[in-house]
């Protein structure tokens, strides 16, 4: 079994863990599940390379903490985060810390498989994703200054309402700026947008 087919699921909710494992096995992956971050970290040193699917919201240590400790252990497994409603800011932070991607619950099969493929193409986790930096940078130049301001805050993980407040515009206007930013950056999802922006060297603004 090659590394791109191996998946480690870390989720405290038994049903979500079991069902996701089943779904991914059905899709042809080799799956192992872990019921907590601690459990996974304890066994991580002996594990062969594979993609880690991490739930952000877990009771003992959360997904972000697992990610940090993995990095401290020099375990360079690619990580995909699963977030619940309203946890996108957390996920964006995780991406800046090196996570490959995140999917928001409830997610489509397509979305999770796409993220796993993306992770598999990454031999190691890097703080700056190896996206074509130049292409991303040239797309970044297409943004108006207001659009760039919105993007800097999106990358910081700020929700629309906070961005609106900070820039003194309505959430509706933020929404339309965001749509144009996605369009110009050719990003289909927020995670893709964050990845591109980081590749282009954009600094988050809080």
């Amino acid at each position, binding site marked *: 079994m090659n590394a791109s087919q191996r998946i480690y699921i870390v989720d405290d*909710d038994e*049903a*979500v863990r*079991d*069902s*996701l494992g*089943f*779904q*991914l*096995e*059905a*899709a042809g992956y080799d799956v192992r599940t872990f019921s907590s971050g601690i459990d996974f970290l304890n066994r991580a040193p002996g594990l062969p390379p594979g993609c880690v699917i991490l739930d952000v*919201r877990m009771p003992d240590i959360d997904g972000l903490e697992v990610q940090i400790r993995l990095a401290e252990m020099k375990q360079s497994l690619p990580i995909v985060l699963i977030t*619940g*409603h*309203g946890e996108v800011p957390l996920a964006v932070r995780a991406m800046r810390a090196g996570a490959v991607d995140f999917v928001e*619950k*409830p*997610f489509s*099969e397509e979305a999770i498989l796409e993220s796993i493929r993306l992770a598999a193409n990454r031999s190691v986790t890097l703080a700056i994703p190896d996206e074509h930096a130049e292409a991303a940078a040239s797309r970044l130049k297409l943004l108006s200054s207001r659009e760039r301001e919105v993007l800097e805050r999106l990358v910081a993980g700020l929700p629309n309402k906070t961005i*609106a407040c900070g820039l003194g515009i*309505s*959430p*509706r206007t933020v929404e339309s700026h965001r749509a144009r930013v996605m369009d110009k950056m050719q990003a289909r999802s927020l995670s893709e947008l964050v990845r591109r922006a980081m590749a282009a060297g954009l600094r988050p603004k809080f």
Partner: protein
Amino acid sequence: MKRSPRQTVEQARREGEERFRRVVDSAPNAMVMVSAAGQIEMVNTQAERVFGYSRTELLGQAVEMLVPERFRPRHPTLRDAFYGDPRARPMGAGRDLYALRKDGSEFPVEIGLNPIETEDGIMVLSAIVDITERKRLEEERQRAEKRVQDIQSELLHVSRLSTMGQMASTLAHELNQPLTAVTNYLRGLRRLLQSGRIDPTRAVEVIDKAVEQAARAGQVIRRLREFVAKGESDRRVENLNQVVEEAVGLAMVGSRQQGVRISVDLDTRTPPVFIDKVQIQQVVLNLVRNAVEALEESDTREVTVSTRSAPGGRSVDMRVIDTGVGLAPDIAERLFEPFLTTKKTGMGLGLSICREIVEAHGGRISALANEPAGTVFSVTLPAGHEEETGHERQPKDIHCR
């Protein structure tokens, strides 16, 4: 020269009197000594200062000159009553006392009465304390206390409102889990069935697991219903107009930024309702926020919240009217079902919670099309008093759900 015993007694008496005068004069309070006939026999310097009269203007006059006119007629009677039982005590226990200055102004006082035996019979020495400042401070303290209480109850109210919001968010998470599991199981199953790589026993196992998770989601909803129906329901007799006004005030926060005008049209003759204020405000808040969101794409951005008393005053109809895009027919039918949503973000729980709350109050909620555009949400609540609805309805609410 040797003094005669009589001279000595006389001198001692004079010395005693002189010492008494000096003590009285240097007292920090205004002091007025009054004879049984009600004449002012002695005053101290502080009394001159407090009342604005000179000593000569006061001595020999009726003490009533220091009493505001409206209390004067009764004053001699009260004075006589003191002589009937002459002992040191405060004047007018429990009543507010006022004194009159030379310039005609009044001030609040506290007066201590002391019977003094003199050669000319028993006199009353009154010590008068101007309590204007003390009263002012007390009133200020009460006002401050009331303000603190108001703020506290407002905070409590807002925190109860946000607790419900938080509960909705927790519920959303708790629902997300089983729903995610159900879809995962079914997608995996479909894939395996399509490729023919699964035996029926295994397929049934997976289906059972999915069913179990669907039931888990159902349980979350049941918990929500219980919470709303009997949870921490705290019902009181309320004026619905006031409840609506407060909730609209909260909903207005940020609405102007979105260019939405919210107007309120209240019927002042609505009968009282017996409700949990926080829950009903949650409903109003939810409906108004929905209305504001429905206006995002509209040119005319108006929300009207109205109350009307039903004929006979048996119920109150509260309406939230928007000029938005309106409801698609297929949505309108299932509007109050859980998980139905037209929003990009949202679990579709808001209106189902609203329905739970309104029905737990013995009311009805419905939606209809507004002319020429938009939607009208109507909430009807029965008029009620504690005696009628409180005790009779509650058991029904709990058991009949």
